[in-house]
């Protein structure tokens, strides 16, 4: 299992660099599988402590089962949980019932995150994105600066090698720290299995269906699957060639939706 251990070691190095390099880092957590690997790695990095807050951007369209998991995990792991919702947007009536999914995602995730960052003055956000999730993510850096407008300048990214990164940011700016960048979906599952990391039950098959990727309730669809265990899921992934986020409607709403979302600060 040396490849998984290599990935784990490098991720822990990155998480420790983030903690050392920034005044006020925070970790983003969606309760999804990648997020839970991230939490697990942070607990390992700090020998059981979680020395920075864990942030959940709550769109108010979360699956109830995920909220249940959130409450359980907070107690189980023992961390400071900061939940943030873009209340103004909700008050204005922005929601999946009335608005297109790209706008909703932008308002309830990206803008909510901007608000949360401004309110808490976080200077680094540790996220669980992976290169293999989407082709625009393939070009990310481990430490990826974002300007005060949250924009990602993917045309002029800082060089990054020999484990040296961009570890400071100007006023209002922040750095995305992305310890899972090198992991693939199957690595995540193998690691979850090896480490016995607790997970929400929705990833596993019920009535012939399971969720492969979890987002907002109205735009996240299950896939047909009989995978009831992680081992089943791994077997399934070895055969499938359907992309992971195919069940996530906001990615497909229009051409280049993902690129637009990311340039505007989406995770």
């Amino acid at each position, binding site marked *: 299992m040396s490849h998984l251990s290599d990935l784990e070691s490098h991720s822990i190095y990155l998480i420790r660099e983030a903690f050392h390099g920034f005044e006020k880092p925070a970790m983003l957590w969606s309760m999804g599988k990648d997020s839970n690997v991230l939490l697990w790695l942070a607990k390992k990095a700090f020998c059981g402590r979680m020395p920075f807050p864990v942030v959940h951007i709550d769109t108010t369209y979360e699956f109830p089962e995920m909220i249940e998991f959130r409450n359980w995990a907070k107690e189980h792991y023992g961390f400071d949980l900061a939940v943030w919702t873009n209340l103004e947007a909700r008050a204005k009536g922005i929601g999946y019932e009335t608005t297109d999914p790209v706008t909703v995602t932008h308002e309830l995730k990206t803008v909510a995150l901007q608000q949360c960052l401004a309110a808490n003055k976080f200077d680094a956000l540790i996220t669980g994105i992976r290169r293999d999730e989407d082709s625009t993510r393939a070009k990310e850096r481990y430490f990826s600066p974002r300007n005060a407008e949250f924009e990602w300048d993917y*045309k002029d990214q800082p060089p990054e090698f020999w484990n040296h990164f961009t570890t400071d940011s100007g006023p209002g700016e922040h750095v995305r720290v992305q310890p899972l960048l*090198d992991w693939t979906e199957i690595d995540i599952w193998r690691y979850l299995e090896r480490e016995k990391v607790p997970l929400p039950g929705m990833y596993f098959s019920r009535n012939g269906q399971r969720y492969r990727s979890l987002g907002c309730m109205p735009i996240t669809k299950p896939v047909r699957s009989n995978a009831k265990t992680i081992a089943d899921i791994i077997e399934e992934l*070895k055969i499938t060639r359907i992309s992971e986020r195919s069940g996530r409607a906001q990615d497909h709403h229009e051409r280049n939706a993902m690129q637009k979302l990311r340039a505007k600060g989406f995770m």
Partner: protein
Amino acid sequence: MSLLSETALPSQTPAESLPAHGAPAAQRPGSDHLYLVVVGHVDHGKSTLIGRLLFDTHSVPDGKAERIEAACKAEGMEFEYAFLLDALLEEQAQNITMDTTRVPFHTERRSFTIIDAPGHKEFLKNMITGAASADAAVLLVDAQEGLREQTRRHCFLLSLLGLRQIVVAVNKMDLVGYRPEVFDRIRAELGEFLGRLGVEPANFIPISAKHGEGLLRHSDRMPWYRGPTLLEVLEKFRANPPASGGPLRFSVQDVYRFDARRIIAGPVESGRISVGDPIEFVPGGKRSRVKSIETWPPENPPPRGPIGAGRQVAVTLEDELFVERGQVGAPLTDKPFEARTFTARVFWIHDKPLRSGELIPLKLGTQQAEARILGIQRTLDAVTLESGTGTTGEVKVHEVAEIRMRVRRPIAFDVGGKVPALGRFVLMRGRRIGGGGVIDSVVEEPPEARGVNPVSRSAILGHRGCIVWMTGLSGAGKSTLANALEQRLLNSGILSAVLDGDALRTGLSRNLGFTADDRSENLRRAAELAIHLANAGVVVIAALISPFRVDRAMAAERAKERGVPFAEIFVNAPLAECERRDPKQLYKKAREGMIPQFTGIDSPYEPPLAPDLEIRTDRESVDDSIGKLAELALGLARPSEQTGGGADI
């Protein structure tokens, strides 16, 4: 060519070749994951090669190839394998890869991550970003064009980055009629060039990426080529084995004090580490043994190691040493160099040149130090390998040079590829990496002549600076003694100053609280200030609770490093007595819960084990105490006149 009319390739569905419950190639025992970089001149076909490899190994998600085919058809173009990779719109518009892309794929034998490095000149930084983390490289050369500028530059950088596993693919053989003499000419020319760089490629392979020839299968059109296919070579490359066989190099990344444990965390760069190992921290030379390896979730029994190279580790030590980020743990018998001046080969990737004489931040492992560029020996032309004159005094963007540099304080490093991670560094231009380098040799130098000699100050003052550090509980009498001592010394013509905890807390450290970390930072500031004052000739009387031994040890060591005499005074009175005195009503407030983490109440005080002087303020008079203190302070400040109270000078 239509994508859908491709001739069928051997089935590579990985699940078939694996045991029912087994992991695929990457996790089978004895197998490994290979990071592969593809480099070469712009338009020599890198993206096409990668796209084709992905396609032929069935590593492309459903729908992606079809979408690109539809897009190509709409534009009236033939199918472009490169578009499988170039997902961003701008890239498709310009037809060049803009940044480093990482793409996983696997075959029956192993799994890979391809790092696509761009060939466009401005994007060299991305190529380095990609190539620096690779195990092996595919160097692509266009059969029609032969060696071009970027081909040579990339060869040079691969050698500098330490990549030794290189395969050369001579691409676009279809466009030269599959003629062996074209291939032979390129092989001869490139082989000679690489030889001068000390690089010996594993193979030269004629291919046509576009037609999938020479990648997974041999081409009928090149029967004259009898060597392996590209994939056969890639499957045989070794993932860079972590240097577990070398001497231990444990880079201290951080020190955590979340609870009573003092956990030293960081990567094992080479060698291995176990509980009980003697270990020395360089620079500094402090020694201890590994007491425990800390893990979460806790393991039963607790792990004892060895933890090998490439892994992260968190340990505690048997002794309470002041260890900090940047130090390197090593065996007592095989330590890295601890030095300030060295020569290095550097490559520069920032628009603003690196100039001779400039002071620039250097990062090596977890160490950081300011470095002075002493001289630029010669700049090398990466294309011709000719030496430049070196008289310009600068290294411009995309240039390579041999330089000599000196860091402001000693750092730990290895040379000659002994431990690669500790032999290479980056130079920071603002927030960005401006360039990187590899240390070639240590330069011996005479003790540095400083602009101002502290001796000349002491000649004026008639004494030298030193630090008298008083520690003890709140209310033990530190401030009273400090003020009286200051007056006594001033009366004797000795420049002295009190550094008082309360004054620090309202000024220099007003942004700090009372957690262990904040207390530690407060004392670090106090120590630095005291050292500066002492260096300027002042006898500094520090009156600080300083409850933790390790923080006091830090202050003493810092002073010693900077040549400042230091004495630790234990101002001792029982807690009950201090609480009875309670001059500032602090104990009262602490007992009422109004002051959390108050030393002696709900935060510990660790008395000195071997103070230079102990004063029992509950038993002796202030005059008696001052007498002893003054004798000690004079001994430190005027060592030639009298011998003082046991202080280590």
